[in-house]
């Protein structure tokens, strides 16, 4: 008994470093990304007194003296320009006009020689409940606006969920495009990979080795190198256009790069091994005499294929397809280098929000959408491949 428990203790000790490392640098980053998506502290941080007073407000009547006094106190206490900028940006996105209103108000408050009596005397807009309503709504430390905006929804003044106006509705287009490109790539991978795996499994000796090596070599080659290779091949004066022109198939170079065609070709090439290998590993477990048996019972080749080989290999096709689709929806490098502006997928948009415009909330919200989609599909894949017979 003590031997087992000391062995268990030892195992736990061996597991602990990696477990802690991944909790700290894998799980936690994902959570902090998601919390960026729902946290909204910009306004609450600077307006604690107003927050207290505003809880007693009926959301309709004009601002009371207490509300204005609290707001003036809060604004006078602000000494961090960046935080002030964050708050103004946040409020302005809820209701336009806050930028000028806040600018005017803070400079009036900074003038200590003749302190204003109340906010309304600084600017008439402080009289309107709409502005106070925007502040009251922005005071919650949590928000769903990023998550809603990730799928082009927003809340109207009454708090009901509605579609954003078309000029702000880009995310759904990109989500649909991401899934569409991934589906196309999965289709082409299956269309090429399934017959390829069947042929490879039906062969033996050097022919089979050659077919497998042709799959493994690109799989092991750097993704960047493969993308660079396609960049060189597909460009206007690239080898493919040269070949087509010399053969007289086309008269002028085709546009193959910075468009959808190039992205699909390059991604199919990159992901094809992930389709071939799972199908192949299922096919080699199917006894070789099944197809001859079907033929000897009078089934024509097509019928034998549809009734015997296809059902048996479907699991391989499904896991290969899922693997390709999961990888494809998260792709960044290939569309970024081979695609045009109209081919950018969700990852590019996340990267844009994160690095380009420092909008961590939107980056987190879109990242959450991608993460959830990936994990859902992966759980299906894991179930599929764990049921595989004869697998460790």
């Amino acid at each position, binding site marked *: 008994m003590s031997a087992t428990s000391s062995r268990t203790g030892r195992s*736990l000790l061996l597991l602990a470093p990696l477990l802690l490392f991944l909790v700290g640098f894998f799980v*936690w980053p994902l959570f902090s990304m998601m919390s960026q998506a729902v946290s909204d502290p910009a306004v609450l941080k600077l307006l604690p007194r107003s927050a207290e007073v505003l809880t007693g407000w009926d959301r309709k009547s004009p601002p009371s003296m207490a509300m204005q006094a609290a707001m003036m106190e809060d604004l006078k206490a602000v000494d961090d320009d960046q935080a002030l900028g964050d708050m103004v940006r946040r409020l302005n996105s809820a209701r336009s006009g806050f930028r000028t209103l806040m600018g005017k108000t803070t400079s009036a408050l900074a003038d200590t020689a003749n302190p204003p009596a109340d906010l309304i005397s600084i600017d008439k807009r402080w009289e309107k409940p709409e502005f106070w309503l925007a502040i009251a709504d922005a005071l919650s430390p949590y928000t769903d606006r990023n998550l809603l905006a990730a799928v082009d929804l927003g809340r109207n003044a009454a708090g009901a969920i509605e579609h954003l106006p078309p000029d702000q509705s880009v995310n759904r287009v990109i989500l649909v495009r991401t899934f569409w490109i991934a589906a196309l790539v999965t289709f082409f991978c299956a269309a090429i990979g399934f017959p390829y795996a069947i042929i490879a499994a039906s062969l033996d000796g050097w022919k089979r080795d050659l077919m497998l090596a042709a799959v493994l070599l690109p799989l092991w080659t750097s993704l*960047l190198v493969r993308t660079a290779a396609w960049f060189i091949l597909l460009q206007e004066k690239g080898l493919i256009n040269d070949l087509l022109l010399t053969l007289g198939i086309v008269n002028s170079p085709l546009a193959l790069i910075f468009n959808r065609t190039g992205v699909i070709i390059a991604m199919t*090439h990159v992901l094809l091994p992930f389709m071939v290998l799972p199908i192949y590993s299922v096919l080699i477990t199917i006894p070789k005499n099944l197809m001859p048996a079907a033929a000897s019972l009078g089934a024509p080749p097509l019928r034998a294929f549809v009734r015997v080989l296809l059902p048996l290999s479907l699991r391989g096709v499904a896991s290969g397809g899922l693997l390709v689709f999961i990888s494809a929806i998260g792709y960044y490098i290939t569309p970024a280098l081979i695609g045009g502006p109209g081919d950018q997928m969700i990852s590019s948009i996340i*990267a844009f929000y994160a690095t380009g415009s420092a909008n961590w909330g939107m980056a987190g919200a879109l990242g959450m959408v991608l993460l959830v989609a990936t994990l859902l599909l992966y759980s299906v894949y*894991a179930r599929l491949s764990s049921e595989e017979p004869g697998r460790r």
Partner: protein
Amino acid sequence: MPMKIAKATFATLTILFLVAPLIAILPLAFTSSVILTYPIPSWSLRWFEELFFADAWRRAIVNSLIIGTGTTLLATVLGTAASLGLRNRLIFFRGTIRTLFLLPMVVPAVVLGVGMQVLLAGFGLTNSYLGVIIAHTVVAVPFVIVSVTGALAGIDERVELAAQSLGAAPITVFRRVTLPLAMPGVLSGAVLAFATSLDEVVLTLFVAGPNQRTLARQMFSSIRENISPAIAAAAFLFIAATIAIGLVVVLSRSMLAKRR
């Protein structure tokens, strides 16, 4: 017969599709021209010179080696220890823990990159070698786990029990029996970890500063901004290294298979 020809044609064309792009890029590494197109006017090593002596490329290569080495050490140590721990079937949530270890392979790099940047900024680790090494280790560890658990699963536990029954202390059993037997798996895990770090772009974009520009990162931006045959020269090195790494992995696997 026509079926057979159709099959052979299809297989040949697909092999061509898979391999030709990689071969087509190789000769361009030796072009003397400044543009990356065929026909090649004359042969030259100027782009390899550029790669090894131009400041940006040389520093990128050095950075890749530093970060790759750090990642390999960290990922191999953590991954091997954890794989040894995972052998014990009595561990609670063994399956869940294993899934967690493999998950970094699945999560899209951009998603992890955003989270990692937020987190490392909190620790003040952005724009540092340590930050990049940590980020690369997260995505390299699954390869070590897969490789080492595979090797460990092939070890006959009776050999270890025999050593134990002859009076060897647990640490001696590990050092003299388990580790040597698992070595091919550990080595191929280490190689895969290094290769992962070498090829990683997306996380590097998020967490590395201008001083940690790796070779892959440098290739990415030069394809984007000013494409030159230096890319082909770098690709040549990558493909040569891949074939070398592939041989190492195949050899260590066949060593493993022979012993079984």
